[in-house]
């Protein structure tokens, strides 16, 4: 690993100053992804700003009736938090579908959003990868791409975002609170992560001097009808081939509101509000869910090994919505 300097920030303003002071600096919290990447020189920061001592480690009520998840609350503490379990079980389930108990104990909520893709080529510095080394080319498009994206891809990158938690946050329409030199701002979750386009090396719309301070959950948690369905190549400790966060607000059998977010298929959690709206005021039936599923994969593109994800995503959406409706036993 490349040598780096290290400081520990004592408050948010200090953290922002520290990270702005040097060009190749990074925040470090749980380090569950960053340290791995540093060891293999995919990440090569010259300066690390340790933010673990900042007072961002609590979960609190918001004035709007929602919950504010401090950026430094661990994934484990979030998933098992009484209010999260009760009001946002979709989020609990999504978090617990990811990583391992050990990793969730270290990983923070803010860090979860900032993790990098698990694309094979991104991890191997001896291969071309536009995300790791802009302009070097994408090895995955004509190479091995079983795990990679089918939606929102570009000719430069077909990487996926690996988070499960983020998929639930997208479905719940969370907001990301950030602070930078210019002060505080709120980024709607759908605008937090980016599509690769011709800048695949930039994962999020967070500015270089900005730090995530909290994730705000709106009041509505869809606690009565939800599911997080994760399909993967083994039963645990594997990233999603396709995952679905589904949430329904039902009036009897009629859908008042539906949310569907997909993981494992794009550079960001994938939501199509217009497709969700197809269910509004309609009966919660397999046929109607099927229509949503079809709408979600409109324009999806496979790259060979991952062609199956298109069909799998459709089936997963239907199953997830059925499970959310019935609240029957999960897979």
């Amino acid at each position: 690993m490349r040598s780096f300097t290290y400081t520990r920030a004592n408050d948010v303003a200090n953290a922002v100053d520290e990270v702005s002071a040097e060009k190749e600096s990074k925040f470090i919290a749980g380090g569950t992804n960053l340290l791995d990447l540093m060891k293999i020189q995919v990440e090569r920061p010259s300066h690390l700003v340790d933010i673990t001592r900042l007072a961002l480690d609590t979960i609190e009520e918001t004035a709007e009736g929602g919950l504010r998840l401090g950026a430094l609350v661990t994934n484990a503490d979030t998933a098992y938090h009484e209010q999260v379990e009760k009001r946002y079980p979709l989020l609990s389930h999504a978090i617990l579908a990811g990583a391992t108990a050990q990793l969730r104990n270290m990983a923070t909520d803010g860090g979860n959003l900032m993790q990098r893709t698990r694309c094979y080529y991104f991890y191997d510095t001896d291969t071309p990868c536009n995300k790791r080394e802009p302009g070097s080319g994408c090895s995955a498009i004509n190479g091995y791409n079983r795990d990679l994206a089918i939606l929102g891809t570009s000719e430069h990158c077909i990487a996926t975002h690996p988070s499960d938690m983020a998929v639930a946050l997208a479905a719940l329409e969370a907001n990301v609170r950030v602070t930078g030199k210019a002060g505080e701002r709120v980024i709607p979750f759908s605008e937090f992560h980016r599509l690769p386009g011709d800048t695949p090396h930039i994962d999020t719309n967070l500015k270089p001097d900005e730090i995530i301070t909290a994730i705000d959950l709106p009041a509505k948690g869809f606690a009565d009808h939800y599911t997080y369905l994760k399909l993967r190549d083994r039963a645990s400790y594997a990233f999603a081939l396709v995952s679905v966060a589904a949430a329904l607000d039902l009036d009897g059998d009629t859908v008042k509101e539906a949310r569907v977010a997909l993981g494992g298929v794009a550079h960001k959690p994938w939501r199509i509000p217009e497709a969700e709206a197809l269910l509004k005021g309609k009966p919660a039936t397999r046929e109607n869910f099927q229509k949503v599923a079809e709408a979600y994969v409109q324009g999806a593109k496979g790259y060979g090994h991952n062609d199956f994800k298109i069909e799998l995503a459709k089936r997963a959406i239907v199953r997830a919505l059925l499970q959310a409706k019935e609240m029957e036993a999960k897979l």
Partner: protein
Amino acid sequence: MKTNEIGKPTNRVDGRHKVTGEAKYAGEFNVPNLAYGFAVNSAIAKGKIKKIDTSKALQVEGVLEVFTHENRPGYVWFDKNYKDMDAPPGSPFRPLYDNEVKFSMQPIALAVAETFELARYAASLVEVEYETSPHDTDFEANIERAYVPEEYNSGEPPKPWGQPDEALANAPVQIEEEYTHSSQHHNPMEMHASTVVYEADGKLTVYDKIQGVMNTHQYITHAFGMQPEEVQVISPFVGGAFGSGLRPQYQLFLAVLAARELKRSVRVTLTRQQMFSFGHRPKTMQRFALGASKEGKLEALQQDVFAETSRFEDYSEDVVIWAGVLYKCENVKLSHKLVDLDVYTPLDMRAPGGTTGTFALECSMDELAHKLGMDPIEFRLKNYSEKDQNEDKPFSSKELRECYRQGAEKFGWKKRNPAPRSMREGHNLIGWGMAHGAWEANQAQASAKAVLTSDGKLTVSSATADIGTGTYTVMTQIAAETLGLQLDDVTFKLGDSSLPDAPLEGGSKTVSTVGTAVKSACDKVRERLFELAQQVEGSPLAEASLEDVVFEGGQISLRKEPSKGVSITAAMSHNQGKAIEEEVSSKPADGQSDYARYAHSATFVEVKVDEDLGTIRVTRVVSAIAGGRIINPKTAKSQILGGVVWGIGVAMEEDTVMDNNLGRFMNHDLDKYHIPVNADVHEVEVIFVEEKDEIVNPLGAKGLGEIGIVSVAPAIANAVFHATGKRVRELPITLDKLL
């Protein structure tokens, strides 16, 4: 035979060392002034190194040297000197030999520094310019140039017998299919590591991850032109190897080279990513053609194997022998060809050849049974072989029928509805499948030494290995049993090249081979001890013969009057305070090779397959094993459980993915190369059926390291077919193949 220790479910004698961290592995022996090496691996699969610039790396403070093909010391001339005990025919790879790159991730330099982190950083600063040549790593595209190797390291495929072509053509029921699996990597938990201690006189003490210290010892002395007494190899614990430690790997060569050049102790440890830069189970395609009569008699069997190897060595394994062991068939034709590619040479991986061959054989038998409308067990029983047809020999023992019977009963096989897609539970389709397998029960030559001291403590030693299999424990049990001692009074030593010679721990033959040597050495001590016991004043044994006494509980007593005897310590007091020392070399008994010697298994599996999503769960496994006498039911069960879990991985997860554009394995870490996690493993039941065998070795025990895995993958594949009606012939069976 009445036993005290053999047959007891004994805890591992080294268990405490392992769970407390006292057990030291090759990369954990610390010595003063140790330097650390980190290997640089090639980015390309084929070509030449045009330029290699180490100047930036050398500028880093604390970096001692960067070794490349340009500054390495002179080599021992002949490449045969680089052949280790497990080298297949060909010319072994020599690290840093010249500027040629023969496979992706080939080690091309070693950075040595004061710390591991510095060495790793320095390695990343080495700049390499390549002249690339077109590489060929595409197995399928090259299958047509498959060739018959000049020499098979595994043994020639058996010659055809009967009229295989005619019989196949005339068989009223036939199947002909292709079965494939990809390359697979061993991935033991412990990464390969070597700590080479440079002694004051230039001698080397080498701690190496290896499945047999004598192989490392031979390799170093030959490759570096050193005298046998100048090198001692030590390897007390191995954190899993599964075949990856049969051959000395490049970290050893590089560490020895650096230590000798720098006259300093050096350790080289590979990273998980680098664990994908050497041997692996070869990608293999098999064509099976079977023909049967309408009544289900197997009339013809043809198996053609195509397997990957490197450009420099012809690696082969026993893929084609299993049909002749398992089934009676009068018309058989077998072939095994190699496809050489720009990859590293494949390497034996748990049940090499058996895992591969049994998968295809047992799937094709299931396909044929289905086509015949016969129950898979009934079909197998109908074609049960009473002799090994490859060599036309009787079996030393074969309680496979009993495996079927007990396994089927425990599993509840008779409740199976034979029709595919006939059993379900909600949106899950339920499938029941079975398969059987065999694995060699060989014995090789080995030596062991037993030393009994006057306090009644016994130390037995042999230069064998314990790769997690339980060697320490089982040898301790055998020794304790033979001399009637408590386990606590016996110490077994292994993993040291100064100990009596033993072969590599591989091929499930260690209990048979080293166990026999241990027993023989202890038997000799027993004779001496008996003579001493007779000399004790007023000895009740004075008139007895060795056959008249038993050794039990530290006593030598009359079989007929157990209250009359002499304690071992009392007997030892007549040896003038000296120890009894006996070293023996044991080899297979005459006539043993007149018999075919195999362990057998029958595996029953239940899977649940989500009809819409294709997800598969292996919810139940029953593995019935005929493995001769079971020395330690606890470690034996662990072996079979491990085999079953690995079998789940082979069937559903393991797959090293080659990117043919880059000529490189791409999923080179444990995030992307999947092996089963706990959540993948549900109910697993192990049955050992009674099996007497007086031919395999004096202990009557067969090795269990590999028999547990061979029939698992086909049983799962067959269960998936029963559940879904879909036959997946390409492993691993992932959900996309069932959509």
